[in-house]
């Protein structure tokens, strides 16, 4: 149950392994809770119609556009954001592959893109180019033309079993 105080709701969410409690308006989106209340600004807002995917995070093992989720709906869930992908300063293999293959330019779509790729490789460790392109259709990148994103993911495909 969510406690309600002065029209605000207290939600408790595990974010990147840390239990966080916050008091939010019912209309507050999860992405705004992450960015504004928890200071996790790696998750971006690129549109207002759930088209761009810049706000993609992992909720209970599922890649989700965090602009489609109210903060109160995420109460009690486990959320992983880009900041939680490789704690401790090392890079996750997806992050390294994106660097190695110049799969990013302005970087704005990147956190959401990487979270979407993580989901793809979890579900399908050895995707074809067409499967990669289809899976990433919900994440818009305006800089790279996707060529090097696909290359980066392909480089992981053969070794994907080694990652979580």
């Amino acid at each position, binding site marked *: 149950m969510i406690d309600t105080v002065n029209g605000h709701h207290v939600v408790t969410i595990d974010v990147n392994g840390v239990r966080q409690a916050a008091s939010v*308006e019912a*209309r507050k989106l999860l992405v705004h809770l992450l*960015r504004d209340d928890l200071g*996790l*600004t*790696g*998750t*971006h*807002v*690129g*549109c*207002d*119609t759930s*088209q*761009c995917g*810049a706000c993609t995070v992992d909720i209970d093992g599922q890649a989700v556009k965090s602009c489609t989720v109210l903060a109160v709906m995420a109460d009690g869930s486990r959320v992983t*954001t*880009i*900041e939680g*992908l*490789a704690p401790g300063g090392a*890079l996750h293999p997806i*992050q390294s592959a*994106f*660097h*190695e293959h*110049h799969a*990013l*330019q*302005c*970087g*704005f*779509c*990147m*956190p959401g893109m*990487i979270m979407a790729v993580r989901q793809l490789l979890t579900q399908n460790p050895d995707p074809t*180019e*067409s499967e*990669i*392109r*289809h899976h*990433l*259709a*919900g*994440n*818009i*990148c*305006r*800089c*790279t*033309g*996707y*060529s*090097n*994103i*696909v290359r980066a993911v392909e480089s992981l495909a053969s070794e994907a079993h080694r990652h979580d």
Partner: protein
Amino acid sequence: MTDATAIKYVGQPLRRREDFKFVTGKGRYTDDIKAPGMLHMAVLRSPHAHAVIKQVDLSAANAAPGVRLALSGAELAGKIGSIVPNWIIPGTKVPNRPVVAIDRVRFVGECVALAIAETQAMAHDAIGLVDVDYETLAAVIDEEAAIRDGAPQLHDNVANNIATIYRIGGGDYSKAVREADQVIALRLANNRLIPTCMETRSILAEPNADGTLTIYLQSQVPHMHRRWIADTVGIPEHQLRIVAPDIGGGFGAKMHLYPEELLCPYLARLLGVPVKWWESRSESHQSTNHGRAHTETIEIAIRNDGKILGLKVETLGNVGAYLSNMATGGPTVNTVNFGTGAYKIENYEAHSRVIVTNTVPVDAYRGYGRPEGGYIAERAIDAVARHLDLDQVEVRRRNFIQRADFPYKPYNGPAVIYDSGNYEGCLAKAMEAFNYGARSGERDQLRAEGRYRGIGVAAYTHMCGMAPSRRLALLGFNRGGWESARVSVDSSGRVTIFSGSMSQGHGHVTSLAQIAADVLQIPIEHIDVVQGDTRQVQAGHGTFNSRSMAVGGSSVHVSSTRVVAKAKKIAAGMLEVDEGDVSYRAGKFSVSGTDIAPLTFGTVARMAYVGHKLPDGLEPGLDETVFYDPKGMGSPSGIHMAYVEVDPETGIVDILDYVAVDDAGTIINPLLAAGQIHGGVVQGIGQALYEEVSYDPDTGQLMTGSLLDYAVPRAEHVPRIRSLFQETPSPTNPIGVKGIGESGSIAAPPCMVHAVLDALSPFGIKHLDMPMTPPRVWLAIQNARAGASR
């Protein structure tokens, strides 16, 4: 530890040094920045394309929870100056553009009122309570309709909605017509686009205790923004600090002066607190500048062997309701000056009109004018091939500017010089990579089997890095063409470059350091690059017009060269020899033919600051600032080829292959350069196949108001782009660089159109306008089939 290196960095595919923060979510974009006690601004936008504002009632908004202040245009009148353009072609009628509309609105999305509140949500709630009484007026959306007799008029001082009339040309077009075997006519629509940076615009203006103001703003041109905001808001330039943090894409959209960029600084000063504004995507579609939006009518005078004798162009450039920053330069200088493309067309006559309509202002978008100009040339040459049933490659060859012609002045006109190029070289490379011969055979064979494959070819050339400053005055471009770089060596020999260029994803922290590292002969790890802070960077013009490597990179090269020259003088003093005897190789100052121990760069740098052994008359320090004004502009060129298959039952275009061969002169970093081509090509594919801003022609309502309705390419819509380079160094700058950022979006639209037209040629279809969406292609096929069976 040695600070010497023998590695040559320029030309290496170095991985980007800036990536770590982006892939870990530590990028710092404007909306990520918060200031203590900041308030939020929301803007009420006009729901009407054209209306008189009779009354604005702010009382409910002012009384709403958390609201500090609500204002309309009337309260702001006289407090902030009007928004004036920065490129005014001589003879232009400039309409007045108040920051917030006062008595009339002229496009859906124009600022009408604003609210400042404690939270963004409260500010948005408040503007919903503003009551505006409008009396709607007839609106005009289309550029052709806007100049017809009786069309609604937008501005009292802009008769017939024509702000600028521009002519250029050379030779004698009438004579070409007399000598021609035939004249072909073509009408081209260059579809209106939304640049769609993934990061929408946002601003944070923060007053400081010392009376200065810091403005966080995603600006491609931070020093220009400082000047414009200072001039318009009335704050001395030196009291404004513009900080451009990480920028989520620019593409030309973030280099203009927008109303919110004036409102936040003004209101932050008025209220004495930080004020932030963030633009939603739907807001962005109706408030951030659009691109393209031209109609062209062209005539081509040809000989039957495919030689073009003359070209006549009539351009109508739709610039929206007001003249944005560079609006008058786009459909004029940037488009029709380049209408002859990569071809030797000696008789040319072009006429362009800059037209205001009740739409979002139109300004620079990746290539600005050069895609439109290149489209004219390429659609012309393609029409010749199609009309005469000649091979599209062969027709281009017969008309190309030849290698021996450079430097080449097209149509012997006054403004354009192509500095260098080797189009045949690019063509040969492209044909080989594309496997043009075999592909043509495959296409023909499949065509016989009822499958519709097509090959598209496009050639292009243009000019980058508007310069020199003196020449820009003649064009009415109220800026310089130089770029500034400061190469500052510390007392241990480590270097910080302060560059006036401004990366928006380009990777300047890597590429500019590569240029400096080669000159300074030190490891690239010893070099940092600072951009985007007018308090740190001395001066600059920023990043647009593919100028950052050609002009910004050259300025880094020149200032690094000066650092080495001074270091040599210091080394001579330390070694007690003549300066002329000192050579600098592999990061060491030495005297050849002697056993004097060489000095490292770091040792000499320390002496520069200790100053004990400086030669007489030499100032201490090792720190050089350059304002580099190029003597001319570089001309990138290239050949792109696309292979497509059209499904006649659905109209869907499947892109099977895309090869780009680009000649941008010296390539600093082939990995990053290819990235620029990939992105530019896909934006060009977007224009050719998917993207188009649509307005209701009667009401002026924006129909493509969100990313649900405006189709930017997704990963599954595009192929792997194969990018190859040819390097013909530019003679106009010390590093031979031309420019790469805009090439893809110039070449790809005609290349894609030609590929689809080639696939549709069995139906007798000779022209289709962009975007060639499935319904448009399908309908063209249906019409052609119906016509054939009639």
